[in-house]
């Protein structure tokens, strides 16, 4: 049972996505699945494609600004009216779906649920779910603010029509989306077929579940993008690369206990230290040996082959500054390709200079409440328009409970959550938005530490 149900609030899912992405197919699927919920639908593209439901209400996109001169919030007047009237028939439904037009900005829709105090009490925005046409999104992702904002606002993203693209294109798209919105849950679908519990009652705006995000995203930044564990026998192996985007690539090869994800994890922190050491340049033809040395492979020769000398058979983790695919890096043993048994990415494959990005901050320690207040107030006043979503869990000095919060642009909602109870206290928060300055945000936040 989620928080909305406990508080007798009606959960609301906002469905976004470009025309033709599969949004209406998903809506029809939700309405016909046997989940036992009576769903009221508020549809912007009313009548365009038939939705099979008794309780469908058409909406005209009507945006207006509520402001006091300093804080400005854009909300959807049509939704306020419709939801207000719908709640008078509260006994007729258990769930509300809001389908937006393909070109709708999800910001005002989401802010509507944060704006009115009574609406906050009766309704619980469960998630913004965005359907992405995996084949055609590339036409919009670079030049459409709406497409980027629909991705940035989402708690759940369905990469739909996966049958029309290759696995490689999907990976590339997912990495791009992940770099824009590190907090969303991404599912790959064909004909929007997805389990209903991935879409309904997901708790994307639920403060208690605010930090259930991709663990990779909440990790600090690493100096390497990839690591793989190989089972290597004693002897000479060969690392073969092709020319890539950079003239050098830093690598570290370290022995690990076994070829498991756990063993890889234990190597991460020591290798971060290795990457902070001075590097030793190695030209093509040179020999790479396991150990605590940071090696910079010189990738300017015609033939980029490096010997890898293994003294004792076992599991070895190779950490690389860039993703090996960027250099088509492969490891060979006795002429045969050796594949990693376990591998892990530490950043998306490709960094884009996207104006829409996510910034995650994780830091131990307690926060000074006054400093935090001043910082967040100033931040939202000056950058609130560009901050689409933010959520986090905070450790406030002198407070025995975690403080969780959630926000859309300049509006936010926060409250104490469960006690720390002797667990290590830390702070973890995410900003998703346009033109976010990672350094400024991180330094600003860290200055609030007590």
């Amino acid at each position, binding site marked *: 049972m989620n928080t909305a149900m406990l508080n007798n609030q009606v959960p609301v899912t906002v469905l976004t996505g470009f025309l033709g992405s599969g949004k209406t197919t998903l809506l029809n699927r939700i309405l016909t699945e046997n989940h036992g919920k009576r769903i009221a639908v508020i549809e912007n593209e009313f009548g365009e494609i038939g939705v099979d439901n008794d309780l469908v209400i058409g909406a*005209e996109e*009507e945006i*207006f600004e*509520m*402001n*006091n*001169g*300093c*804080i400005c*919030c854009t*909300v959807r*007047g*049509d939704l*306020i*009216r419709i939801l*207000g*009237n719908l709640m008078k028939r509260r006994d007729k439904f258990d769930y509300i779906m809001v389908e937006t037009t393909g070109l709708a900005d999800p910001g005002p829709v989401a802010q509507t649920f*944060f*704006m*009115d*105090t*009574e*609406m*906050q*009490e009766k309704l619980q925005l469960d998630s913004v779910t965005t359907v992405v046409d995996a084949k055609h999104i590339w036409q919009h992702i670079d030049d459409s603010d709406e497409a980027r904002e629909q991705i940035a606002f989402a708690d759940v993203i369905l990469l739909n029509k996966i049958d029309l693209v290759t696995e490689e294109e999907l990976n590339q798209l997912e990495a791009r989306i992940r770099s824009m919105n590190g907090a969303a849950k991404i599912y790959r679908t064909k004909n929007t077929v997805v389990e209903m519990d991935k879409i309904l009652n997901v708790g994307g705006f639920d403060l208690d579940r605010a930090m259930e995000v991709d663990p990779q995203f909440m990790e600090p930044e690493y100096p390497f993008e990839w690591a793989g564990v190989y089972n290597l026998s004693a002897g000479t192996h060969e690392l073969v690369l092709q020319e890539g985007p950079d003239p050098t690539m830093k690598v570290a090869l370290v022995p690990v206990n076994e070829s498991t994800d756990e063993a890889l994890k234990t190597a991460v922190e020591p290798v971060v230290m290795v990457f902070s050491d001075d590097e030793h340049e190695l030209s093509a033809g040179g020999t790479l040996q396991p150990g605590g040395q940071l090696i910079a492979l010189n990738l300017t020769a015609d033939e980029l082959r490096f010997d890898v000398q293994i003294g004792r058979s076992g599991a070895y983790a190779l950490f690389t500054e860039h993703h090996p695919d960027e250099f088509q890096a492969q490891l060979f043993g006795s002429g045969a390709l050796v594949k990693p048994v376990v591998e892990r990415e530490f950043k998306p494959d490709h960094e884009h200079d996207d104006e829409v990005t996510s910034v995650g901050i994780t830091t131990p320690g307690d926060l000074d*409440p*006054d400093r*935090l*207040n*001043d910082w*967040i*107030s*100033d931040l939202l*006043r000056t950058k609130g328009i560009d901050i689409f979503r933010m959520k986090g869990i905070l450790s406030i000095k002198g407070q025995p409970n975690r*403080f969780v*919060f959630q926000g859309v642009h300049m*509006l936010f*909602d*926060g*409250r104490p959550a469960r006690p720390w109870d002797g667990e290590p206290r830390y702070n973890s928060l995410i900003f998703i938005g346009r033109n976010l300055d990672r350094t400024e945000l991180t330094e600003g936040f860290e200055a609030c530490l007590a």
Partner: protein
Amino acid sequence: MLKFFNSQKQSDPQQLIQVKSWVSQAFDLSEDISVMITQLQCTEEGCPPIETVIAIMETPGKPRQYKIHKPLAEVKQTDIVSLTTD
């Protein structure tokens, strides 16, 4: 004032219903007209820290919007009545 912890949810639901009903009464609104009330915070010098903003969603596209320079908890019926004469 702890602004960050000043959740909008902290307003008293009874007071909210009361203020909405004063608005409907003062402006003589029919039952199907939505009234939206929110509290906005401000850190600018000279601004009250919390203002109550009221929007009456009567005509599509043209909501009437009013501000009262105090938190919702301190809003009195006379504040609402005075909006109708502004």
